[in-house]
Structure formats: C-alpha cells, structure tokens
C-alpha cells in the first residue's frame, strides 16, 4: 500500500497510535477527580456474607466468650491499590463494632507494616489504642512445618510483637489462648496465599472461618472455595472494597476510585469494539479483493 493511496478509514481504526490511547485513559481516569460520577453499586453475595460474619462476631462477643479476628496481611506495595482499601474497610468495621484483631504475615514483611499505618490512622478516628484493641505481630518467615506448629500452639513460634515487646506482656494477648479463640481469618493477598489457611488451618479448627480480600485477577479462582464454603466471603479488587465501604456507609478510596473505573471500563469496551469493527471490515475487503482476483 504505497504512501499516496488514501488509507481506508477502517484501517485507521485498527492503527490508532498507542500513545493516543494512553492519553485518553489518563484523561478519562482524571475526570472523576473533578466531576462526580455515580458510584452506587449492588452488593454481591460474597461481600455481604463477609460483612455479616463480622457483624455476627460482634453480636457473639456481647454475650459469649470473646472471639478475635486474625488479619493475614500478605500484600506488598505493588498491589496496595486493591488490598489497602479492602484492609481499611475491614479494620474500620471492626473498630466500629469493637471487634479486636491480630495483624501478621507469613509471606511478606511489607504487609503488616503498611497495615499498621492504616490501623493507627483509623484508631485516631475511633480512639482505639495499640496493644488493647489490636496487636501487630509483624512478619514471621514460616515454612509449612513451622506453620503447622503455629496452628497447634500459637505461641510456639511467636516471641515478640512487631515493636519488640514480649507477646505475653501485650494486654490483649492475655485473652487469646490459641487459634481456637480466632473465629475469622481475613487474608488480604495479591497471589494465592489463602491456601495455607483454607487447607491446613480450617480442617483442624472447625470454628475457624476464612475470608479473603484478593486482587481482581485472583477473584475467579477463589469461586470453587466459596462454593464449598471453605472461604465464606471475598472482596474482589477495588469493586469489592467499594461495595464494603457502601455497606459501612463511608466514602473511602475505593468508592472514589470507582468513578475512574467506570470511565476506564467504558473506554476499553469502546476500543475493543473499534479494533474488531476495523478487523472485520478489512477482512471482508480482502475477501472481496480475492473474489475479484479469482
């Protein structure tokens, strides 16, 4: 196709320069920072059942023996965009309902560190104190054998909390005998970290339920575990966190982010359509040209 022959419009459709596409993504994602876009969403069942589980723990704590929540924070800065709002929503809900929780990670040192800053920010809003309302054990590098010993006796491999104070001296830990006092493990992860809690911990401790906050790409592979109730609740990417914030009636980062998600998704659907229209038309033109030649 020599330069001077006018390029048919549907060829142009398929060859818009990469950088123009990127500029439009940048523009569309920036719009909701200035113009509000509707962000109300329908709450999906996995998000609702995780919300109900924490409500149920709060009710039980009023009457029976206090149950705690374990936050397994296996996420790193590269996936903080999705896991951080999820963790913030869960922590806010627990602070509201006076449910006490333990933060730790067996995979990544970064997770507990970033969760601690979240907890301290939210603690100011609900005047909660470290050591009394939540404990951060930080990162413990653990292989499977050590993990099994953790399930059977929590204090076997936990010596100190992340600030260095011996674990026995932390006021809240006096009420936590073993993993049997934990009735929900909330695992926030960018990869398939939920496996060890679902496969190894739950069969040993019947009362333990597992909820996960995962990046959107991992969401679909969690569904068989939700079907078998090995996992009772899931926050799937930013929309999962936004739905949870909607249940809490707060307007956090996730809800703000959904405005940009709206326009970004619509733009991707438009580009897919453009690409395919151009593709079909140019294929039909080729068939016509072949018919003329034949």
């Amino acid at each position: 196709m020599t330069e001077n022959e006018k390029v048919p419009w549907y060829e142009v459709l398929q060859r818009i320069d990469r950088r123009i596409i990127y500029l439009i993504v940048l523009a569309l994602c920036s719009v909701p920072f200035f113009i509000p876009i509707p962000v109300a969403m329908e709450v999906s069942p996995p998000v609702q059942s995780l919300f109900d589980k924490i409500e149920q723990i709060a009710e039980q704590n009023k009457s029976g023996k206090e149950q705690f929540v374990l936050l397994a924070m296996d996420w790193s800065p590269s996936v903080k965009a999705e896991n951080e709002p999820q963790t913030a929503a869960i922590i806010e809900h627990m602070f509201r309902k006076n449910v006490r929780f333990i933060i730790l990670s067996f995979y990544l040192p970064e997770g507990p560190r970033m969760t601690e800053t979240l907890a301290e920010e939210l603690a100011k809003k609900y005047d909660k104190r470290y050591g009394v309302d939540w404990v951060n054990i930080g990162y413990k590098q653990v292989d499977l054998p050590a993990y099994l010993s953790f399930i059977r006796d929590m204090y076997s491999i936990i010596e100190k909390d992340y600030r260095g104070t011996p674990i026995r001296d932390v006021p809240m830990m006096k009420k936590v005998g073993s993993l049997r006092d934990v009735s929900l493990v909330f695992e926030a992860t960018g990869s398939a970290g939920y496996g060890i809690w679902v496969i190894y911990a739950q069969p040993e401790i019947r009362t333990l339920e597992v909820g996960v906050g995962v990046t959107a790409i991992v969401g679909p592979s969690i569904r068989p575990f939700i079907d078998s109730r090995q996992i009772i609740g899931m926050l799937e990417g930013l929309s999962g966190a936004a739905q949870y914030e909607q249940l809490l009636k707060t307007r956090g980062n996730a809800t703000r982010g959904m405005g940009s998600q709206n326009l970004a998704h619509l733009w991707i659907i438009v580009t897919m359509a453009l690409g395919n229209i151009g593709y079909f038309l140019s294929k039909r033109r080729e068939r016509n040209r072949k018919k003329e030649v034949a």
Partner: protein
Amino acid sequence: MHASYSMLVLLFIFSVPIVYFILAARKGKQIYIRPIAGLAAIDEAIGRATEMGRPVLYSTGLSGLDIVGLCSVAILSHVAKLTAKYDLRLIVPVNSYLLYPVVEESVREAYADEGKLDLFRADDIVYVPGQFPYAAASVGIMHREKVAANFFFGYFAAESLILAEAGSQVGAIQVAGAEDILQIPFFITTCDYVIIGEEYYAATAYLTREPTMLGSLVGQDMGKLTITILVILLTLFGILSVAFPNTFYSNWIIELLRL
C-alpha cells in the same frame, strides 16, 4: 487432624496407578498420549519462519530451576532441533540465573545433534534478571530482529501481556503454553495457539517420551477418572435418595466419604 479412612483409600487409589505406570513405562511399555494440538502449531510456526527467513524467539518467562522451568527447557530443545534443521537463528531470553546454564546446554546439544554446531551462537541466549526488565529486553529483541515466530513456555506473571502483545504487533506467529491459568487469557487474545494448564506437562511428555512423565500422566488420568466417577455417583445417589426416599434413606456416598 489426621487422615480419615476415606482419605487413606483415595491416597491408595491415586498413588498406585502413578507408581505402577511410571515403573511400567521405565520397563519400556508403550504409553499412548493423545496428540497435543499446540505442538502441531509449533511446527507450523517454524515453517512460517523458514519462509520468511527471520529469527525465532523462545521465552522461558520467569521460570526458575523447577518442574515448570525444566519442562520449558524440554520443549525448547524440541524447538531448537527444528530451528537447527532449517538453519534459523534462535534467540532465548532467560530470567533465572539458575536456569540459564541449563538452557544454554540444551540449545547447544540440540544444534550439535542436528550437526549445525557452527550455527549455534552462545550470545543469543540472553540472561535478563527482573520481571519488567525481562519483558522490556524481550520486546526490544522482537522489534530489532523482526522475529517471525514467538514461543512462550513456562511460568509467566503480569509481564505475559507485554511480551505477547508486542509479539502480535511485530506480526509474529505465536504459540504459548503455561501451567498457571491466570495468564492464559492474555495469551489467548494475542497468540495463535495456547496450551492450557495440565496440557503443558502433557506436551513435555509427548515431546520427550520421558518414561517418568508418560507414566505419571497416565496414572493421573486414573485419578481424574476416579474423581469423575465419584462425582457422578454422588449426584446419582442424591437423585435416588430424593426420588425414592424409603429405599435410599440417605446419600450413601456422602456417609462413605465422611468415615
């Protein structure tokens, strides 16, 4: 928590065929593995590359010295034999320093087997650490060398999208295979053929005719057959226990599994 009887029985049912078929295959018993469509696509891609006379790129992704990486090396030696036979240049970017010597040795051996050792260029086996530097380097090679065919076999993470999309822009014919299914959707949109999940190991067994892998695959098929039968029985007994409540007072299979 210790194994319940049903777990012990299932462990027995799964393990025996695997060990039996591995040992049988070792003794030379002929094992049938159905042809994997993806492998025909490899030959077609190499044919296309010889027509165009352009180099071929084979990426092992982020795989290290583990089962996934070694299977990728097995498929690589098959591809290397083909490129040697048709005098094509083969470029292999590798991400793991542990896998790098294994890759180099396998390609050199393949070129030697075809008697084309003079064609083998050691600096075509490129070592690039880091996830995104690896993707950027491979994309650079695709554009500079105008590669005719791309092969992606091994463990891929988020950078699969960058590699496959750049490859389809260069107009190369692409075949991919990954055991981890999270990246398969991106390979499907950009490649001509994709080997999915377990097929990845079947492709290695089909190519290398390795007795351990062949026997293990047949043994695993028996395990999958057991699960299929178990699920069908579970459903059947479920229907019977509802349709004829007096004879089948409960779903026997469930009680059996709970022993």
